[in-house]
């Protein structure tokens, strides 16, 4: 199976480094972007299998990015997991409504976070199907 590519969008340089290292260690290929415009451009260019998206971004916040991605047919199927410092009270619902598959407030629990990534990439489904057969 080919290596899944994940795009991380966050304006914090260190977070990008830390999360990228974690994801690589878990067997994923990683590309990064640090603002809204970059996020959309990278998605088009890199065609990632999954996007991890911050909400508080320069040059177009996370919701705007979600809106742009949903507007492009070829990107419609790319799952987005929101990882934000913002308050989940309203933002969780708002993110899910805008098309994200999951919302995590920073800092996430690694186990839950990685599990959500695998789920979003369809890997766990594959596993359960594997078990069934």
């Amino acid at each position, binding site marked *: 199976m080919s290596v899944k590519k994940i795009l991380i969008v*966050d304006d*914090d340089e*260190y*977070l990008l*480094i*830390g*999360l990228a*290292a*974690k994801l690589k*260690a878990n067997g994923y290929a990683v590309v990064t972007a640090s603002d809204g415009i970059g996020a959309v451009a990278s998605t088009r260019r890199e065609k990632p299998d999954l996007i991890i998206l911050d909400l*508080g971004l320069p040059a177009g916040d996370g919701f705007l990015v979600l809106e742009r991605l949903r507007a492009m047919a070829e990107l419609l199927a790319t799952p987005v997991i929101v*990882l934000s*410092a*913002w*308050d989940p*009270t309203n933002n969780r619902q708002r993110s*899910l*409504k805008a098309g994200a*598959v999951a919302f995590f*407030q*920073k*800092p*996430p629990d*690694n186990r839950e976070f990685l599990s959500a990534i695998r*789920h979003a990439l369809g890997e*766990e*489904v594959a596993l*359960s199907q594997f078990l069934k057969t």
Partner: protein
Amino acid sequence: MILSKSKQIEEEGYPPSMENSSSDIGRGVDGISRLNLLPEERTELLDVKAWAPMLETYGLTMKVAVALTDTEGNLLGKCHNAQPIWTLVQNTKVSNQAGCPFCLSPPLPCMAVADALRTGRPTMVRDLAGLMHVAVPLSLGKHSLGAIIAGQVSDQYPESLLLKRAAEKFGVSAQLLWDLSVKQRPVGRASLQLAADLLCTLGKAFLRERYGAILETHISQANLRFRLLVEGVTDYALFTTDYLGRVTGWNVGAERMLGYCEAQILGQNFSRMFTSEDIQNHAPEKQFLKASQEGRAEDEGWRVRENKTQFWANVIITPLAEDGDSRRGFALVMQDITTRRKAEIELETVRQERIDLQEQFLSHVSHELRTPLTAIYFFITNLLDGVAGNLTPGQRETLEFSLENVKQLKDMVSDLLDVSRIETLKLNINPQCMSVPGLIAEVLRTCHANAKLKNISLNTDIAESLPSAWADRARIRQVLINLIDNGIRFTPGEGSIAIHGGVFAEDNNFLCLSVTDTGCGISPGNYPMVFDRLAQVETVADTSRKGLGLGLFISKELISQQGGRIWVESQVGQGSTFYFTLPAFSLARFCASILTPTNLEAGSATLLSIDVSSIDGAIPAQDLSAIRKTLERSIFLGQDLLLPSMTEAETTETFFIIACADRSGAEAMTKRLRRDLENSRVKPTICLTTVQLPVNDQPWDKRISEVTSQIDKLIQGHLLGRESLR
């Protein structure tokens, strides 16, 4: 009261018999015998100028000298119709000499005035010179005011011997005295007696008249004062209404405050001064009722002026009642406190702004902290995962300590935000029907690692068949983790923490959960303090860092906002137990609004179960909320009820609807639901169970509770069935 008393005096009239009339004025008339006179009133009653015309007339008519004296017999004012002898004697007398002014017999004391006042009858005296005078008492009730002395006349032809003796005593010329005496016409004793009785009646009547006049003056002055008070008070609206609220009196202040002039408002209902909202809520009637029942009602609120502008008023309503009968009406005192109210609102706004600012700041800080914290968290966990190569045991330990600190920091950041939310009342609580054992098991898994570090055992003791709680699952989880973490922190290694759950012994509408540790304990004096914001209890100072000390404060808020209570019991050196209560979920209470006799007239109720399941993993939250929304739209409010989520399983969910309809009605609803759920991504299975209402002679509440318990059993059975299918 005052008026009626003065009336009594007038009505008593003049007694026809002299014998009776000579008794104390007002004897037998309680009001007067009990009355108290002020010194100035006494003086006023015996005002010589007022008495003068009467005494003058009497003296001239009866051809006697007449004068007013005080109770000691001292002359008050002048002697009217003074006889030549009296003038002679008075001119000779040393001024201020004590003794009766009408007596020619010093130094013997004249007891006439004293006797008259004592007996209440006119007392007649014949002096050394053979001259007669009579003292008439002037009393009002128990008060002796003074006397009238009349006379200085002889009752027979003067005796030369007596005159000579008197002249010697007085040091006047006996010849002169004789000449004067023989010029005076003798007055017969009997006619003098008669004249005395007449004087007594006159004096009594005049005294009463005077008293009445004084009272009248006082009353009219009081009335004037009252009128000035009521009319002149412009800062307060003072008005009266009848018992139906129609205005019967209106002062200048009321006119100024409310804009109606007296002619406009008299007879109008005072409810027109209320806002339309208050009128709809029956505020005017409620206030009258309160005033009638409690003797007074006070209210603050918006009132409407004639020109429809509003002001914030403080109103006091008092019933104008005698013997609790409020049918006489009400008196209202109204004050315009809009300025004060505005200041209060201003102050509140400023306070709110400050709190909002604080919340914004805390929220900003906590969010700003989260991103770098996350980066650190990723770095540390990466290292622990061996991303940068293998670790020595020492390095691993250091990293685990760092990780522990990151977690503490994360909790503090969350606490900060919670506290600011508590203060701005923005704390979100979404109660649901939740199972306590499931939650405790989940919490234990979370806390396990922490407890293991200190080798502390975690035990649970949960009552079997514990009813579900009606609470916010995430918030209760937060409280439990708070309490357990707290326990772990203050319990030395090898200790234990026990979590109990059961029905609250004091009130079975509540569940009671407790967390017991074997830590250092808290002294009773500190019990209330531990739940304070930023509490730092000294006796528990044996750990290096305890976070921000906000955990228990937040827990208390979270519990109390869900209708529960939290408290601690502890023994220093033995450990502490934190208890909290949660409302138990009661299907009966939840359904009470729709399971009513009217709704159940058809004789049955139907339970609809809508099963949703997902083969692969959890059902997406948005799907569930979409289905719930659809269902809510499809049911009839007030007749059907959509129950809250009853299960915590992630891969299945069942929605229950209780419909007060018979089977055909329920089938129609099922059709409608299916149509409405057509567009939903998840296709739920709908199943119908109809519960027949027991047809018997039992009272309605019993029949309803029967239906409720049947529904409860059906729900539990349905959930168990699904569980076993999985």
